């Protein structure tokens, strides 16, 4: 049911041309997906998605729109080639899922590699009842450290990109769309 709603939100995103509406729809889309994650037992992912996807990224988009203006012009070329590429890719992917095991089956191979060990042993080895936290912070600690490096690099990149504009142009607000 939520998935169908998500599909509708996705289509609306495609059609709407006012970028403020697009950003709001993207926020709704994120919130719906957070609901979906809760239903599929991924509570940690759900609250991260609700905070980051629906919260921070909406704010970032609104900030960018305030600087860039919020009208999208009509695409100049025909959409036939992109549509063809998308349909072929989608068809291939659906064909690929035919070999996938069914949704939610406990006998799926994905559940029997290291997940059993995490669920059975992590409390004795780490002492945290939340398995996701203990895997994130301990078993895959280096991964999380790499992630913070990526975030740091992104923050530095954004600062370098936007640092010049403050000094160079004293009147950007007057030129923008004032959103």
């Amino acid at each position, binding site marked *: 049911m939520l998935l169908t709603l998500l599909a509708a939100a*996705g289509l609306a995103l495609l059609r709407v041309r006012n970028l403020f509406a697009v950003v709001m729809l993207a926020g709704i889309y994120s919130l719906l997906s957070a609901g979906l*994650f809760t239903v599929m*037992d991924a509570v940690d992912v759900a609250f991260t998605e609700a905070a980051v996807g629906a919260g921070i990224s909406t704010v970032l988009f609104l900030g960018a729109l305030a*600087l860039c*203006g919020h009208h999208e012009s009509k695409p100049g070329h025909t959409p036939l080639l*992109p549509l063809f*590429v998308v349909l072929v890719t989608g068809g291939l992917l659906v064909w690929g899922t035919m070999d996938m095991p069914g949704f939610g089956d406990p006998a799926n191979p994905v559940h029997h590699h290291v997940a059993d060990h995490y669920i059975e042993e992590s409390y004795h080895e780490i002492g945290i009842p939340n398995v996701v936290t203990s*895997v994130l912070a301990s078993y895959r600690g280096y991964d999380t450290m790499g992630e913070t490096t*990526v975030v740091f690099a992104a923050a530095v990149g954004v600062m370098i990109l*936007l640092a010049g504009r403050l000094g160079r142009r004293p009147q950007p607000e007057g030129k923008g769309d004032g959103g």
Partner: protein
Amino acid sequence: MSLDLLVSHYNYWVVIFLMMVGFYILISRGNLVKKVVGLNVFQTSVFMLYISMGKVSGGTPPILVYGETDVLYSNPLPHVLILTAIVVGIATTSVGLALAVRIKEAYGTIEEDEINAIEARTEATE
């Protein structure tokens, strides 16, 4: 048989549909901010694919229940991977939007067609 297939693969198919919507926005729309939105839709659909694979029917979230041994938990590993991916995703989104802001400043527009036209004009005059 085919109804079984529909029920057991419905998640994957809707995920693929959303992924293709994101992909289509990315390659067919000229506005750079809209492209970043498309990228986000694509990315979220990948998250949903992973979380779908981690779900066990009748399972509970992977937070250990004190004193119980025969509880069925969903797979925690995809959750961990996706937590990392969400944070990396917001990082790439912010860099993309910062680039869009800089392009707006340099060219006065964020429409791909207009940028190409300006590029062609400056090359012709040089």
